[in-house]
């Protein structure tokens, strides 16, 4: 693989959810080692784009390649890391922090084989990076929301991915831990990993970013050097119309006064 071949290549991508177009005409090329942030208001399609890039949402139009392989044929799942937005780490049965983080190693383990020494070492160091090493044996359900978010970050780190998608990983995480995460991502980035980060507040992550993409209403409206978050959220271009393109009608009987006139 030559160093210049893109890690992510999305051409004229479109995604529709339940028939309604969410993303349209999205072209996005991410090169190895880039640290990219995806910005945009609520509902602009950031999560949808990340889900499309990880293969969770099928494209209705366009083509997507990861590491030069079309997504349909992509099998190198260990090269991908994913931190979903606002997922809870808890489930119906107690699970220890270490167990949840260990599931991030699955991409590197073979079926019916016990975890090896490398797997355990990766779990330990991922937990140290997010500052939860002392909670490894506790049940995740007893952790706070921000701590659970850090568990999910550790789970993705444990797989030692080359391409890292994080959907609002710092939502609800306090400043010291945002700094710790920034440090971890900085280390990762400096070792050549590619990072795609969705966020509303960059905070301590700001110095790491070398490219910003802004989405609005399912389209890319800016792609270039990092910019101030205020610009991305359109405060300088007041626009009274709704920007999330939501029809405002859930069912025919649900018309609200606000939307009834169209």
């Amino acid at each position: 693989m030559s160093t210049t071949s893109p890690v992510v290549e999305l051409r004229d991508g479109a995604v529709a959810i339940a028939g309604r177009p969410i993303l349209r005409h999205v072209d996005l090329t991410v090169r190895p080692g880039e640290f990219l942030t995806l910005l945009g208001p609520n509902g602009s399609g950031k999560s949808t784009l990340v889900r499309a890039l990880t293969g969770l949402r099928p494209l209705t139009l366009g083509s997507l390649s990861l590491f030069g392989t079309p997504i349909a044929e992509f099998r190198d799942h260990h090269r991908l890391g994913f931190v979903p937005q606002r997922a809870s780490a808890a489930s119906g049965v107690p699970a220890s922090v270490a167990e949840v983080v260990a599931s991030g190693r699955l991409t590197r383990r073979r079926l019916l084989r016990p975890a090896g020494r490398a797997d355990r070492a990766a779990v330990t160091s991922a937990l140290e990076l997010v500052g939860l090493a002392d909670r490894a044996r506790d049940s995740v359900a007893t952790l706070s929301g921000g701590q659970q978010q850090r568990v999910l970050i550790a789970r993705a780190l444990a797989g030692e991915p080359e391409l890292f998608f994080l959907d609002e990983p710092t939502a609800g995480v306090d400043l010291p831990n945002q700094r710790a995460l920034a440090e971890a991502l900085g280390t990762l980035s400096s070792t050549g990993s590619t990072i795609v980060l969705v966020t509303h507040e960059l905070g301590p992550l700001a110095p790491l970013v070398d490219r910003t993409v802004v989405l609005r209403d399912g389209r890319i409206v800016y792609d270039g050097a990092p910019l101030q978050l205020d610009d991305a959220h359109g405060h300088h271009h007041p626009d009274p119309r709704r920007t999330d393109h939501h029809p405002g009608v859930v069912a025919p009987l649900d018309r609200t006064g606000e939307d009834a006139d169209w």
Partner: protein
Amino acid sequence: MIDLLGYPFMQRALIAAFVTGLAAPVIGTYLVQRRLALLGDGLGHVAVTGVALGLLTGFAPTWTAVVVAVLGAIAIEVIRERGSTSGDLALALLFYGGLAGGVMITGLAGQSAAKLQQYLFGSITAISVTDVWFTIGLAALILLLGVGLLPQLFTVAQDQDFAKVAGLDVRAYNLLVAVLAAVTVTIAMRTVGLLLVSALMIVPVAASQQLARSFRATLGGAVVVGAGAGVGGLLLAGWISVRHDASVAPGPTIVLLALACFVATWPVGAWLRHRDRLRQPFPAGAVAPLEATDHDDHDHGPACGHLAVPHDDHVDYVHDGHRHARHGEHYDEH
């Protein structure tokens, strides 16, 4: 008691109860993790139709029950995946359809209700040698897959999106759990009966998760409770029957024993969780040092009766909702 163990039917029943008690909680743990605790119940009701079809056509009811329950499991998975009907509604539909269909078909077949009763409430003491082997084989399969694929099944149940990105075939694993649940239902049918099948899958999990902090511990504990309740319930039912010259059904006894385990572990679990919370250190520097006030009428010490928590180089005393760490003239909150 010893006489009872000498009977071959009792030995067969003990083996069946033991392996069923081992296998059922394994699948139950995954169902509880996915918040589908009632799936086993739905499949149990569907299997009633399977048993009735066996009675109608003359095939072995065990086999027709396996086939129909597996088909029901696949149907539930498909309905759930399509997302058009919520999971618990889909379950309810199968529940009623299965039970009503079963009772009606049994009527058509002209079989007496007593025959169906065997399957509804279990008939472990009437189990044949072939049935014992059948039970052992299927239980071994469930244990092998349920424990061997633990990391995969755990991840899929924990976070489907993450599992998909990690390259796991989420649909296949979901289907596998549903099919294994159907198989569990049919082997447990002989032990506790279709109406109580789900109890043997779920109640041991409920009991063991009171004391466990990890998934593996929950699963291990549930297997111990399940196998213990299986064997213990059977012996208890036999003993009561002999002592009081009554006929106590083993199935309900097994379930009640598992429930007793839950009732016993619940307060212990609540107390352990409470103690854990007390012992958890507050984050360093979160609370400013407080002046020594006279809220304590004594100097805390080993004998003062307050919970003493060793903490780095000193000892904190937990009392009245705070952690008292004496520090020279004042105390700190730890």
